C-alpha cells in the first residue's frame, strides 16, 4: 500500500532529541504517505509525544531532519507549519474555555485563510471563513452546538472540538495525540468514526495517531510504528504488526504494566 516512489507528506530522517544527558528520542525514521493512517504505539515514556513535538516544529530536533511536503521544516515553528497544513490535536482537553464552538473553529479558519491581521469586519460573517466553519461543523456533527461556549460542552464533544479545530485548518496531515483518552470505550469508536468520515470529507492527506487502545489501532490503522525508549522498534503494516508476537508483547505488556 505504501509506495516508496512518491514523496511522503511528512518524513523524518534519523531525528533525535536529547535534554542534557537524557535522550528522549534517537535515530527515528518515519514516513507518512498520502492516504495513510499510521498509529504510533509504545509504552509511556517511549518518546511518542516528543516525536510529535519534533515533527510539528514545537521543539527542534537535536539530530536529523524533518521534511513536510518535501520542505525541510527547520526554522519554521508550529504556527507556520499549522497554516501550511500540518495540524495537531492534543492529549489534554484544552480548547479555549471562553470561546464558542463557532469562534474556536473560526480561529483556525482565519489563520488558514490568512485573515490574521484583519482588524475589522466580523470574523464570523466572513464568507469563506464561515464556509470552512460550516463544513467542519457538519463533518463533526457540531451544527447545532455552534454557539455553545466550549467549556460547557460535554467531555467527549470537547475532545472532538479539539480535533475539529485542527481539521478546520484544512490540513494535509493531522497528528492526533490520543483523541479518545478519557472517552468511554463505548464512545471511542464513535469518535474514531466521525473523525475518519471528517478526514475523508475534508480530504486530509494522512493521519498519525498516538493511541494505547490496541483495538482502535488494529481496526483503523494502515500501518503501525512502535516505539520504546526513544527508539523505533517496529514499522509494519497492521496485519504483520499484530502477527509479530514479541514486539506486541513489548508494547502491550508494558501497556498492561502502566495501565
Amino acid at each position, binding site marked *: 500500500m505504501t509506495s516508496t516512489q512518491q514523496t511522503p507528506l511528512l518524513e523524518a530522517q534519523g531525528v533525535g532529541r536529547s535534554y542534557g544527558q537524557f535522550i528522549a528520542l534517537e535515530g527515528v525514521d518515519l514516513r507518512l504517505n498520502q492516504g495513510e493512517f499510521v498509529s504510533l504505539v509504545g509504552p509511556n515514556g517511549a518518546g511518542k509525544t516528543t516525536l510529535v513535538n519534533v515533527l510539528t516544529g514545537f521543539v527542534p530536533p537535536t539530530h536529523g531532519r524533518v521534511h513536510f511536503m518535501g520542505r525541510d521544516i527547520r526554522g519554521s515553528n508550529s504556527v507556520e507549519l499549522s497554516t501550511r497544513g500540518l495540524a495537531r490535536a492534543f492529549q489534554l482537553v484544552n480548547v479555549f474555555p471562553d470561546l464558542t464552538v463557532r469562534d474556536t473553529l473560526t480561529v483556525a479558519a482565519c489563520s488558514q485563510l490568512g485573515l490574521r491581521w484583519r482588524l475589522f469586519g466580523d470574523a464570523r460573517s466572513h464568507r469563506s471563513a464561515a464556509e470552512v466553519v460550516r463544513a467542519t461543523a457538519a463533518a463533526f456533527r457540531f451544527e447545532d452546538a455552534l454557539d455553545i461556549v466550549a467549556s460547557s460542552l460535554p467531555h467527549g464533544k470537547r475532545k472532538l472540538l479539539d480535533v475539529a*479545530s485542527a481539521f478546520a485548518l484544512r490540513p494535509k496531515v493531522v497528528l492526533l495525540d490520543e483523541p479518545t483518552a478519557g472517552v468511554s470505550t463505548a464512545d471511542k469508536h464513535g469518535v474514531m468514526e466521525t473523525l475518519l468520515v471528517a478526514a475523508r470529507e475534508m480530504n486530509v492527506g494522512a493521519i498519525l495517531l498516538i493511541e494505547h487502545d490496541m483495538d482502535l489501532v488494529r481496526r483503523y490503522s494502515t500501518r503501525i510504528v512502535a516505539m520504546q525508549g526513544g527508539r523505533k522498534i517496529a514499522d509494519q503494516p497492521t496485519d504483520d504488526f499484530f502477527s509479530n508476537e514479541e514486539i506486541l508483547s513489548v508494547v502491550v505488556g508494558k501497556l498492561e504494566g502502566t495501565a
Partner: protein
Amino acid sequence: MSTVFTSVASGHTASLRDNKPGWFARRGLQAAIFLGVVALAAVPQFADAYYVSLGIPFMAYAVALLGFNLLFGYGGLLSFGHALFLALGAYASAISARHFGLTSIEGMLLCAVGVSLLVALPIAFVASRFVGIFFGMLTLSFGMLFYSFLNKFYHLTGGDSGMNVPQPTLLGRSYAAMGKMEFLTGPFYYYCLVLLALGVLVMWGIVRSPYGLHLQAARDNEVKASYLGVKTRQVRGVAFLISAVYGAVGGVILGVNTGLADPELAYWAHSGHLVFMAVLGGFQQFLGPVVGAFVFILLQDELQAVTQYWRFFLGVVLAALVIGMPGGILGTVRALWNRWRKR
C-alpha cells in the same frame, strides 16, 4: 509558559460572551450604546455645569479604558503602567502646541497617536513575551521609567510644574472667545462624546474581527492557539499598540481638561486607578470599562465630598469587587439578566 497562561485564562470564567449572538449581546449592546450616547448628549441640557465638567474626565478615561481592556479583558494582560500613555497623550499635545504651534485638537490627537506608537513599539516588543505578574511588573517599570524621565528632563517637559495644554480649536473652529468652562462643557464635551462613540465602534469592530478572535484564543490557551496558526506574541504586541493609542487619545482629552500635562499622570498609582475602573465596570464585558469610568468618577466625587478618607472607601470597594463581584457591575447585571431570562 502554558501553565502561567492557562492560569490567566481560567480566570475569565464569565467570558466575553459578546461573541455569542444572544439578545443581550447583540440588540442589548447596540441599544446600550445608542441610549448611552443619547443620554450623554442630553446631560449638558439639564445637569449642573459641575457634573457636565465631570463628563470630560469620564470620557477621557472611557476611551483610554476601551484600549486598556483590549489588553486586559480580551488579551488577559494586566498592565500596571498604562497611565504612561495617558501622560504621553497629554504631553504630546502640550509639546505640539508649544514647539510646533499646533492649536487644533486634530493636530494634537495625530501627534499623540504618532508618539504613543513610537513609544509603545519597543515596549510592546519586550512586553509581548510576558503574561501574568511579569507583564504587570514590566509595564509598571516602564511607566515609572517614564515618570522619572518627565521629572529629570525638565528642559523638555517642565519637570514637576508640567507643561501648559492650551485651549485647542475644534475642526479648525476657534472658541477662544468662550470661557474655558463654557468651552469644556459645550463644544468640547460634544467633541469628546463623538470621539468616545467612534472609539467604541472601532473597538467593537476590533474585538469581533479575526484578529480579535486570535487575541482571545491566545489568552485562553497559548499552545493550542499556536497550533491553530495564532501568532500569539505578535497578536499581543498589536493589542498593546492599539491600547497605547487609545490611552494617548484619552490623555489628550485629560490634558485639555486640566490645561496642564504633569508627571503625576504617569505615576503608577494612576495606572492603578485605570485598573480599578476596568474591574469596577467589569473587564469581561465590552462596555464594562466605560461603565467603570462613569461610576468611578461619580463615586470618587461623592466620597471626597463626604469624607477626607475617601481612599479607604475606594480600597474597600475594590477589594469587595475583586473578591465578591469579579464580574464587576456589568458582569453582575448580565448574570442577573440571564437568570431572569431563564425563568
